[in-house]
């Protein structure tokens, strides 16, 4: 009997105090991470450092301009990659879906390239193009472009045929068909692809910097690793994590904003 009342009281407490419980769960989990990091860092030896030392190194690296300079180099690769992803991804996806012979001819090869682990193709890119910024962006694009390609292709192929038939019966020209049916219908699919690509372009940028020319933010990571300087490695990893989380968040916000009608009607 007491058991049951306890259980039901606990249940009521969980429901009534959901907000504070949620906040304390978040706080507890982050606090625990930092505490464990601090304790382990103090005892681990020379290859790992506590959180406080990492933060001091981070502040020093930002203040002397090392991290900002590296971010400019990596940021350039990242933004160019993203831009090319969007342009190439949307055009390729539309062509695969709307041009029948093109889709039939190239779709299997697009899948093949997508399934092949791209990192394995980097030596080939190196042999053919060398290791400057251009090949780096090529590698980053091959890693990150596919969510947009497949998103656009799936979206365009899933346009209900009634829509196309209606447009056809009212004598839509191809340009009207695109403006009034295809583009509005496909936009949410494009945005889902763009959101995933925003995250993958970061992976692509890092892979390109790791494997072709160790510059930018990866240059700092590699330097810290080879010089056995854990404070620098951890500080730069923190910066990368921060950027990754912010970029993913921004991607989600953009998607929500551009296709807000979808959330409104379904919600």
């Amino acid at each position, binding site marked *: 009997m007491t058991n049951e009342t306890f259980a039901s009281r606990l249940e009521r407490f969980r429901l009534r105090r959901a907000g504070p419980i949620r906040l304390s769960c978040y706080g507890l989990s982050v606090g625990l991470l930092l505490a464990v990091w601090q304790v382990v860092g103090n005892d681990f030896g020379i290859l790992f450092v506590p959180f406080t030392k990492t933060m001091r190194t981070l502040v020093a690296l930002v203040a002397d301009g090392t991290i900002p300079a590296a971010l400019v180099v990596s940021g350039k690769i990242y933004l160019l990659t993203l831009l090319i992803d969007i342009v190439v991804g949307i055009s390729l996806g539309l062509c695969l879906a709307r041009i029948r012979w093109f889709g039939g001819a190239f779709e299997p090869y697009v899948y093949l390239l997508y*399934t092949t682990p791209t990192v394995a193709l980097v030596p080939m890119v190196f042999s053919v193009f060398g290791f400057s910024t251009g090949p780096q962006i090529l590698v980053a694009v091959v890693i990150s472009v596919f969510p947009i390609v497949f998103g656009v292709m799936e979206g365009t192929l*899933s346009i209900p045929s009634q829509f196309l038939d209606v447009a056809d019966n009212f004598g839509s020209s191809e340009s009207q068909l695109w403006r009034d049916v295809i583009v509005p219908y496909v936009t949410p699919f494009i945005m889902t692809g763009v959101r995933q690509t925003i995250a993958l372009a970061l992976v692509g940028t890092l892979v390109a910097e790791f494997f072709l020319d160790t510059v930018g933010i990866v240059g700092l*990571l590699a330097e810290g690793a080879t010089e056995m300087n854990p404070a620098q490695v951890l500080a730069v990893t923190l910066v990368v994590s921060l950027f990754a989380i912010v970029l993913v968040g921004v991607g989600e916000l953009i998607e929500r904003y551009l296709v807000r009608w979808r959330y409104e009607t379904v919600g």
Partner: protein
Amino acid sequence: MALRDRRLTLARPAGVRAGEFAWNALPVFTGVILLLLWEVGVRSKLPAYVARPTTIAAAIPSVIVTAGFWSDMLSTCGAIVEGVAIGSIAGAVLGLLMGRVREVGWFFTPYIRGLYSLPLIALIPVLVLVVGYNDKTRMVVIILSAFLPVAMTTADGARAVSKSFLDVGRTFGAKPYQVWFGIAFPASLPHILAGIDIALGRAFTSAVAVEVLASVPGLGYTLYADAQSLHDDVSFVYVVALAAFAILVRTGVRSMSGRLAPWYRPRARA
């Protein structure tokens, strides 16, 4: 073939409709053209060591009889299968807990979402310092690259279990373990499998990356070493082997999704 069927329903006729045979031959035809372009392009413009289809084909017989090829293959593919299995099971268990018990979800969300956003390749230098230049680092990275997506998708799936299923279970007096294994787990199964598909894609990339960056012997390491000593044709045989294994495993998981959860029809491929 579902894709092609849907393409046929589009209203716009695409010029002259080719016959069925010509349609099936089309990808083969483009394949031959692509290979020819590659062969001719490399032959006329690039140095002799750059791999082209004929040199790769010539290298295949001599590479696959070496013991090194098979031990690399076993080492890397074995590590991927083992790591993805461990990571997926752990991810599914944590994901179920996160999805069904709110407090557990809140506690782990910062870690799972944060680490999931972070490209794992950025963690390799830290792991190399902590774990060392050995195949344990590779195992940790593969497990992580499977664990995170499976935990994410499973949590989403378990959270979205239809309320009416749970109500029916409660009405018929289902015990907690029956709710967990009879309702929540099967309902999340398609999400778990979708997570494993993402996991495999990431695991292949991570495995190759970690082998190169932490000098762990395996397919990826040999592939890079061969390319560096200008044996691009040998290197590409490794690429083909790796890609073949990747396609095999991922196709297997996708077909399993249809077998194990036939009621589930995803609207669009992720």
